[in-house]
Structure formats: structure tokens, C-alpha cells
């Protein structure tokens, strides 16, 4: 089972077209990885599907880095009783 970090990076790569090995935890989705407004929403939607969780839209769209997303998703998974590695 892939870790939260692996899944987040994989989805981020798929949406932004940045190779997964180049994605760093401190990368900002918009400023460093070039995510536009549609891609930001796509990322949130794909995180929800991949982890089986429901995210607060405004809260999720305010997370601006890859590391922040991992932290936020881990917290929501715990709150919603969804297992992660």
C-alpha cells in the first residue's frame, strides 16, 4: 500500500505534468508546480477519490504546498477513520 506522500506526489505529478521524482515537499502547487485554478480543484477532487475522504473545499484549496497537503490529508484521514500507512 502506497504511503500518503507517495500518493500525493503521484496525483500531483499526474495533474501538473511535473515528473514525480522532481516534486519536493516544500514545492508550492501554484508557484513551483504551475497549477492553475482548475488544476487546484482537480487536485482536491483526486485526493478525495484516492483516499476515500471528504475535504472541506475552502480549507483544502488554502493548502499551498505538497508537504502541507500530506499533513492535511493525514489529519483528515485520521478524523474520518480512514487507514493510511
Amino acid at each position, binding site marked *: 500500500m502506497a504511503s500518503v506522500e507517495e500518493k500525493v506526489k503521484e496525483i500531483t505529478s499526474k495533474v501538473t505534468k511535473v515528473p514525480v521524482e522532481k516534486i519536493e515537499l516544500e514545492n508550492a502547487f501554484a508557484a513551483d508546480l504551475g497549477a*492553475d*485554478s*482548475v488544476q*487546484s*480543484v*482537480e487536485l482536491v*477532487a483526486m485526493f478525495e477519490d484516492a483516499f476515500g475522504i471528504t*475535504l472541506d*473545499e475552502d480549507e483544502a*484549496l488554502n493548502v499551498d504546498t505538497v508537504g502541507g497537503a500530506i499533513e492535511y490529508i493525514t489529519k483528515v484521514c485520521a478524523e474520518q477513520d480512514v487507514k493510511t500507512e
Partner: protein
Amino acid sequence: MTHPLIERTEPNLLEDTFEYSLPPRILFDGPLVEYIEGKPVQFEPKEARSRDLVISDTTFRDGQQARPPYTVDQMVRIYDLMSKLGGPSGIIRQTEFFLYTKNDRETLDRCRSLDRPYPECTGWIRAVKGDFRLVKEAGLKETGMLTSCSDYHIFNKLKFSSRKECMDAYCDVVAAAFEAGVRPRCHLEDITRADIDGFVLPFADRLMEMSAGVSEELSVKLRLCDTMGFGLCYPGVRLPRSIPKLVYKLNRECGVPSDRLEWHGHNDFHKVHANGLAAWLYGCNAVNTTLFGFGERTGNPPLEAALIEYIALMGDTRGIETRVITELAEYMRSIGLPIPGNYPFVGKAFNTTRAGIHAGGLRQDERIYNIFDTEKLLGRPPRVAITDKSGVDGVAIWVNELFGLTGNDRIKKTRIHALARWVMDQYEVEGRLTAISDEELEEKARELLKDLWAKYKGNA
């Protein structure tokens, strides 16, 4: 002088002016001041509000001069809607009709047979004695008549040999009106290009003298016709272009009461609407208008805008049925009147936002990018049009409108991203340069948002 920050943690939305359920209030800090012959003269907005301010209409006269003739049925329908729009206290007080053709007279008869108290029907004739026969036969109490007052008209058009000859001729027609028991409304054509001291004021004096000899109901009304749109509403302007001074001179120097003064403007310099409001504030009770501003050349003050201005000035609707503005616009479009998309209050896109950042604001609180509660007052909720600038917020608003969802029922942006992606790809990948029509987007929504479509639209 310094300006310290007034800290707040809650917004101050200035709701005494911007009460969303009404057009924004027109509030004044004090009197308007105009210098007349070097001395300051005050005009109290409170006094203006206390007068019987009204709107008169010339859609069937000046309005019709700018287009092919309406049919009788069309005019009767417009009259009926106009009556509903103005409400029971007759904010739209009068409308005028030509009397020259069989159709003109049939229209007048059919409008009057509707038995609406307002707008009252009046006539419009040339300043020719014989034309009063038409007014009398039609049984009208009041008629407008052309009494052009600039030398451009007196000498160059009407070919009078002197101003005296001209004034005598006009006064003969006024006397004929009195004799016929018809109230004359003298249309001072081209007043903003006339010699005010040399002709207009002496003529007004003479009309006041003549009126003193007849009953109040017959006394002469004066319509100040800014025929070429030269009138200016701001203070300090020299005559004859100054609206404050023109109204002041007729009202306070010649003694023509406000309820016998009317302003008629033209839009040649884009000032037509503001000039009408100025005339109200400085002493005219009536502003003459046409529906959607349609009139000779560049048009007249738009009737619907004058109504909105009236509500803004008075602070309540006073029985005006504002939603009929939309009904009238739909009717006028259906009979071929072109109304530009960006035309205020009724254009297809008057409250449609295209920019994504604006759509984002609209999503959070429609007041941010809507002028007033356009759904309540005009039956037109704010909308977004979809282009490359719309962003996900714009697409989300569009989808929620499509499914009729509001408040907490609104669909989140994360559920419509596929449609937002298609929109962006249209521009970024396909190189599209035009807006996306509602029909086109609906077709895509049906394809890309299948679950939502099934839930909210079923098989539609």
C-alpha cells in the same frame, strides 16, 4: 490633515446608501449651490423630494421618430405595460400621441378605452391654429406644440422676419388653444442654443400673463427641449447650456411653477440621463423620457433609468412595478427593437460577469458584483458568462444556476472540475476566441456531469 484608520473587525457595508433591496440611495450633504448673476442661490434636494416629481413619456412621438412606425396593437400593448409599470400614483404621469393619421387616432382611442388613470394621454401638434381641431376632436385636455426658440429655428428654419413676429404667431396659437379649452404645452425647442434673455424669458413672461387670464387647468406648461443635447448639468456653466440657470430663470424669475415645467433631453453628448435628474433637482417636476431611450438621433432620457433614479432619490418604490421593465424589454425585443447586451437594467448581459475573480466574489456574496437585488427588482439574478477568464468559480456559478441550486445546496467546485477543464482546454488547447454559449455548455454538462445531471435534471 491626517486620516487615522478606523479599525473594525466586521464590515461596514454602508447600507444606509447601499440597501441592497433598492437602487442605491442618492443622499446629499446639503443644498446644491449655483451662482446666478454672481450671487449664490441654493437649491434644496429636500424641497425637490417634496415636489410631485413625475416622468412623462414620448415613446410614441419622439421615440417613434427614430424607427419604423409601431402598429396600433403594439402601441396599445406598450401603453398597457407602461401603465402597470408606473403604478397607481402615476409616476409615469403622461404620454403623448401624434394626431395626424387614422392610425394615430385609433391608437389613442384604444389606449383610452383601457381606462387606465395613468399615463394620461396628451397630443402633439404643430403650432398651427388649425391643428387644434384635431385635439378637440380627439377630446384631449392637453397638447404639446412646437414653439422653437433659438434663432436657428426662428430665422433659419421657420423664416420669421423678426423675433416679435415669431412670438406673436406663437401667442396666437396659445390663444387659440385657450379658446378651444385645451391646455397648451409649449415645447421650447432648441432652448440650449437660444438667446435666453432676448427671447425665451420675454416669451415665458408673455405666456404667464396670458395664463393669468385663464383657469389653472388651462394655464400654459413649458417643456424645455434640449433638442441637440447641448445642456449641461454641472454648476457654473454659462447660459444657454446651463440646466440649473435655465430652470431657475423660468421657475423663479418668470414664476412658472415647477408643476408646469418639464425637461426634454437628447443624448448627443451622453448626458441625457444625468441632465434629466438635474432638471428635477433644480425645479422641473417632469422629466420627459422614452422607453429604453429610443428617440430622434441619439435618443432621449431612458424612461426605465428615470424610474430607477426616482426610487434612488425618494428611497422607496412608491408603487412602481420595477419588474415590468424586464417585461417591456422582452416585448420590445420581440417586435424588433434592438437592445444592446450591455444596456443598463435590461441588456442581456447587464449583470453578467465574465472575469473569474469577479465570479469568485459573486459566489461568496452576490452584492459584491451586483448593483442591487436585480432578481427582486427586475427578475434578473446576476449571471456569469463563460470564457477563459471565468475560472472554476465562474463555471461553478453557471452550473448551480443551471440546476437552480442556492445556499447550502450549491454544488462544490470539486464536483464540476471536469467541465471547468473542458472550458479551459477550449481556449488553451483548441485556441478558441469566443465566449461559450449556454447551449454549448449545457450539452457538455450533460456529458461530463452525468450524475449531477441525472439528479437535478432527470431525463431533461
